[in-house]
């Protein structure tokens, strides 16, 4: 194995050294299909504000996470069988009999959790530096849609191993649709394709997971980047770098994305992979948080597990659902907890983008909404009893109060003066 590794590495090395001699071919193609200049424009010449910090690596990391899921996913589908009878054992076939099947499967199961970690940090960065504010409203909204698609993708994928949690989680989520007035129950049967969650449901979830949502995610990421590159990156100071350009139209406070930022983010991507593989090799279930113990038991429609809990990345929304003692309202608020973010660009009335120059009111609001979200995430994994329930109600109130208060707070807040250019360090 080690020898084949060396040989392949050497072969790639040779290819990389030979490629430059074929530049003429590239130019010939590029005149007819501008694929190379497109890549250069967006990965190399893109003017990035010179003060982008580590927080800005999360966007690149999200792309890496996406690529990991796609590749490992394609490989898993080669053996996975989407039927109620075979699904569970086909996962075990991959884990035990297929060469390196365990690696591919653990990469996929770890990958989804870390993708969410990265995406949540990415969103937090957007909130912190005001990346949703004009002219980036659509960019922000496409991000919210992406989060929603990612949740749908993760949920449909979670059902596929057809363990106890897969089965009961799919039942719980599908049941949410029954809270729609009048047609709710019919919609549930229609979604399931059966009178109960069954192999038919599993099979269509497989279709949505592998082809449906995944391709929507790819398309949406593409749009997200197009939007980003047409309005340009925000930066930690929230300064508009396009105001000051040199004779050639290059923003004075920008540096080309390559090599500086590419080289800045590559070690961070590798660090991400380091953490990734520590989990894959040494704690693939991550203490029951990435792969739940109950899901190692085959789906059984007759026995409900003692504690049904969602994956950690969906638990904040689940906590909101449980904290509201009304089925329809709970489902609605769960939906609103994401949908409301779409309107943030118009709810935040402050002219200042970055929290570096915002007053204490806006800062408090941000800390409150993020804090309550994290708290809800913790509470969503605990049983909804006693103090846990009280706290999740408080956290839900705090979370939604953000959307009510932010227009007022941002309007009356004492902001600092934003510099004209990016300040020197």
């Amino acid at each position, binding site marked *: 194995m080690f020898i084949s590794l060396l040989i392949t590495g050497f072969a790639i090395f040779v290819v990389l050294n030979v490629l430059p001699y074929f530049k003429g071919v590239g130019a010939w193609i590029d005149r007819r299909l501008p694929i190379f200049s497109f890549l250069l424009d967006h990965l190399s010449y893109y003017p990035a504000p010179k003060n982008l910090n580590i927080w800005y690596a999360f966007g690149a990391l999200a792309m890496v996470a996406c690529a990991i899921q796609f590749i490992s996913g394609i490989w898993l589908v080669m053996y996975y069988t989407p039927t109620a009878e075979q699904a569970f054992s086909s996962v075990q076939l991959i884990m035990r009999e297929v060469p390196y099947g365990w690696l591919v499967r653990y990469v996929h199961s770890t990958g989804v959790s870390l993708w969410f970690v990265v995406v949540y940090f990415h969103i937090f960065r957007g909130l912190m530096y005001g990346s949703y504010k004009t002219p980036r409203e659509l960019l922000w909204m496409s991000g919210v849609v992406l989060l929603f698609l990612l949740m749908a993708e993760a949920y449909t994928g979670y059902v596929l191993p057809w363990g106890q949690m897969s089965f009961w989680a799919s039942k719980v989520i599908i049941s949410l649709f029954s809270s729609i007035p009048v047609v709710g129950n019919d919609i549930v049967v229609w979604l399931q394709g059966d009178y109960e969650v069954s192999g038919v449901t599993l099979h269509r979830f497989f279709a949505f997971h592998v082809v449906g949502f995944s391709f929507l995610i790819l398309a949406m990421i593409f749009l997200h980047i197009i939007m980003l590159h047409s309005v340009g990156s925000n930066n930690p100071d929230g300064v508009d770098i396009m105001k000051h350009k040199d004779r050639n139209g290059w923003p004075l406070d920008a*540096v080309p994305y390559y090599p500086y930022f590419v080289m800045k983010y590559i*070690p961070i991507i590798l660090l991400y992979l380091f953490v990734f593989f520590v989990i894959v090799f040494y704690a693939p279930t991550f203490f029951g948080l990435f792969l739940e113990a109950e899901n190692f038991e085959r789906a059984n429609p007759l026995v409900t597990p003692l504690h049904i809990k969602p994956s950690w990345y969906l638990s904040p929304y689940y906590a909101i659902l449980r904290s509201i003692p009304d089925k329809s309202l709970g489902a609605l608020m769960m939906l609103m907890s994401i949908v409301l973010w779409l309107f943030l660009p118009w709810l935040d009335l402050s002219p200042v983008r970055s929290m570096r120059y915002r007053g204490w009111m806006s800062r408090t609001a941000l800390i409150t909404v993020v804090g309550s979200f994290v708290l809800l995430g913790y509470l969503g994994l605990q049983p909804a009893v006693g103090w846990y329930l009280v706290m999740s109600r408080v956290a839900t109130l705090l979370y939604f109060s953000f959307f009510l208060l932010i227009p007022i707070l941002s309007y009356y807040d004492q902001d600092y003066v934003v510099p004209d250019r990016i300040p020197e360090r």
Partner: protein
Amino acid sequence: MFAFAVGDSLVALDAVKIDTTDQARILRGGQHFQQTCLSCHSLVDFVNDPVAKELGLSKEQMPVWPEDSWNGHPPPDLSLIALSMSPDWLFTYLRTYYVDKARPTGYNNLVYPNTNMPNPFVDMQGHQVLINPNYFDKNHAHGEQFWYRVIKLKETGRLSPAEFDDYVDDIVQFLTYVSDPSVHARRQIGPWVLGYLTLFIMVTYAYFRLVGKDYFQSPKSPPPH
């Protein structure tokens, strides 16, 4: 930090130290499994594993139970039991049977109350009896009490208590391996991958530092574009 309830255990679970490198012990546990458990429990997913080959486990030896056998509670397959429950749970569960005339099998269990599984270790462990019957009223559904404050060995079996603990420990080691045999490969490949990444991080970071100099530590030079 992450305490996740498995089953509805009434007592605190004993911690068992899993040593995935002790191949001899895993094999010994496998032999114990063949003696004590295989008559009822299968390991369907495990049959093609090298360790199964070494033990002589084959698909033909695995019991197959119809859904309606054992009053609708056929003995489950144990291929993944150490992941769906936990090694600690197994280790404590298998050692906390006690005499209870009210149960059809004559035994009850502290970790898994009213279990349908008959006590498999009567001749080895002997009989344990309840010494603290009030326990159930006071501590219902709290996994705080230690099992040895609730039940006590009354009559020693073929094995001494220490020998018996070892015996069960071996089985738990074996079942833990069975639930995820990739552990050997993971431990083998892991250090190489992580070492490679560490080296790669250091090299690329050093290169980044040099690139950074072009932009930020030489203010005299013009912006490079």
